[in-house]
């Protein structure tokens, strides 16, 4: 009697979380899967009552999504874009975190906030802002460096720039916080051994930071796979970004522009699966190194 009563308590405490999880995560996911296996069938003109009904089509939508060349081209574009963003953003974040952590830096507080601030600007606003800077007749930066920032090849760099600008601050903060958690006496020991600041950074700080670096990388991989805001907001300004530039843009287009919710559902499940594979794959590759001592 007493035992079972105590056994119920944890579930009681868990109830709010379980309810919220079910309502806002499990049910929508289940509904997406349901939608992905359906399709509308129209008869005749498709006008008027009863001309359109929903039918079960099994895995047809998935097969179509996997066979869609546009989607895979989108993946390729995002891969290139992602490599660019990940490398530059995380490199800069690490550099800034190390610089801020070094004892000699001045105006640390100010710099920290200044680097973090772009993260507080919503992606759409940031992209519009940069969009104005890229446009030929409005751009002040074109006077300095006159290239077509929205050209066929440059547009990827321009987009990556927006993402890096907005993302460095967050990642820097994560890394910086992790750095502050490292016991100071390690540095002192290294200094006594005659290590320079650079050597401390490379030999002590970065190895100690590895878990945080892994964490930020996984976050960034997921964010990059889902890239949507930057290309969507830049698209009206240039003819180099198609409506299926990134996989998520294709989902949006299918669902809300061409009105095919079913294909969109199937494609988004494919995207989720690929994100899962990529982020878990990355974790698996680095796990042994990163968490060896833990």
């Amino acid at each position, binding site marked *: 009697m007493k035992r079972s009563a105590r056994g119920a308590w944890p579930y009681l405490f868990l109830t709010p979380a379980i309810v919220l999880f079910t309502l806002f995560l499990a049910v929508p996911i289940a509904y997406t899967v349901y939608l992905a296996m359906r399709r509308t069938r129209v008869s005749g003109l498709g006008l008027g009552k009863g*001309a359109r009904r929903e039918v079960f089509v099994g895995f047809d939508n998935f097969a179509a999504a996997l066979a869609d060349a546009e989607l895979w081209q989108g993946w390729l574009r995002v891969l290139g874009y992602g490599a660019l963003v990940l490398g530059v953003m995380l490199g800069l974040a690490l550099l800034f975190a190390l610089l801020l952590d070094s004892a000699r830096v001045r105006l640390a507080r100010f710099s920290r906030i200044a680097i973090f601030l772009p993260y507080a600007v919503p992606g759409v606003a940031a992209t519009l802002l940069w969009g104005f800077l890229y446009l030929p007749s409005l751009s002040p930066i074109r006077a300095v460096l006159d290239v077509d920032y929205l050209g066929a090849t440059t547009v990827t760099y321009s987009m990556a720039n927006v993402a890096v600008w907005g993302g460095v601050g967050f990642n820097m903060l994560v890394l910086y916080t992790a750095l502050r958690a490292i016991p100071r006496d390690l540095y002192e020991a290294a200094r006594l051994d005659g290590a320079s600041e650079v050597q401390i950074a490379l030999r002590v700080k970065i190895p100690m930071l590895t878990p945080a670096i892994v964490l930020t990388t996984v976050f960034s991989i997921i964010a990059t796979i889902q890239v949507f805001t930057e290309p969507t907001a830049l698209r009206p300004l240039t003819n180099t970004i198609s409506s*299926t530039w990134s996989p998520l843009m294709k989902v949006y287009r299918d669902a809300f522009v061409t*009105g095919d919710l079913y294909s969109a559902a199937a494609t988004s499940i494919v995207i989720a699966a690929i994100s899962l594979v990529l982020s878990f794959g990355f974790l698996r590759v680095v796990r042994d190194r990163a968490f060896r001592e833990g």
Partner: protein
Amino acid sequence: MRTNRLGAALAVALTVTCMSGALVSCGSDEPAESPEAAPATAAPQGPAKLTYWTWAPNMDKIVKVWNDANPDIQVTVSKQAGGDDAAAKYLTAAKAGNPPDLVQAEYQHLPSFIAADAVADLKTETAPIKGEFSEGLWNLVTLGTDAVYGIPQDSGPMMLFYRKDLFDKHGIEVPETWQEYAEAARTVRKKDPKAYLGTFSSKDPGAFTGLAQQAGAQWWSISGESWKVDVADEPTRKVADYWGGLVKEDAIDDVPYFTPEWNKALNDGRLLTWPSAVWAPGVLSSNAPKAKGKWAVAPLPQWNAGENFSGFWGGSSTAVSARTPHKAAAAKFATWLNTDPKAIDLLVKEAAIYPATTKAQSALGEAPEYFSNQPDFWQQAAAVSAGARGFTFGPNVGVTYNAFKDGFDKALQDGTPFSAAVQAMQDATVADMRKSGFQIAS
């Protein structure tokens, strides 16, 4: 919000905002002078509360006039962003089972609404007012069937807007044929290498649709129980290749409409014409305020000298949701809004629309403020409107318009022929209809 495409949260929203004639925000702020509207006949079903999705500016003021006079039918305006997004939102709401009672439906989106079974047939309710609209406009809400799916609110016949001062400066005559327009484009490039006569926008399928209509295109038609899809028909190819050629020889620019670049070019006098619709004054006054009084209007250039054809860019109707429990009340309000002289007067003054009823079109008096130098503005519009021809829109315009953007973006970027982009539109449209199971006549 109209100043440029970037103004809206997601720029996409505005892309098509501008396709709708109802949108033009040059509404003056004069208060409505007549507080009483159509007298309320006792509604048997008791007070009905209706919601109305619209993006026409100041619609709440117009609806207030109705609400004050009709305590039995109370309408609440819910302001929408407009354009393709608004159509998608309505379709989603209809699918989710909670659409508004009334919705502003652009003509090109109405067939998608009908195909989704999201709008009610108003045949009996609209029988008395059918005669107030031109046959062409009425066809847009019936698709040539027996049913009536909406009440026309405004229309967007296309005209040629041009910089009179710069035409005079360069000694250019107003082009009467597209041939002359092309010649004028080359002349402008010679006289002022920084300026263009016009631009081809790969972001505005609505404008291209209107130009194709002018040339006599029939993208969709219904024959019996099947659709005929002919987006890449001969007139459309002709229009596409015409503009493609001009862009290729750099006689015409390729800056999309409603972008900051375009605004700047308009303001700086680097764009001399804009083939646009009757609602253009509102756009020009907010996007190119510096050029006020310098623009004039003429009929669109013709494909054959002596013709008088135009097409439509934008325009919308008021549709009633298929799920509303107050269909009769909703139809009554929609009828008042679009046919009552006082309501139309308000629509013209407050929402700056070009009304759909034939009588109201000819009764428009004072030219828009931006065109105060052209007192016969509305007479010109009425003359153009008489020669404007549209076509039945298909059930998947979203697909076609999206294919336009992707296809013409690519054509501009790669320098490929425009007619290939038109073929891509046709292919995408047919493939999508086949996928859904629509009956297509070959």
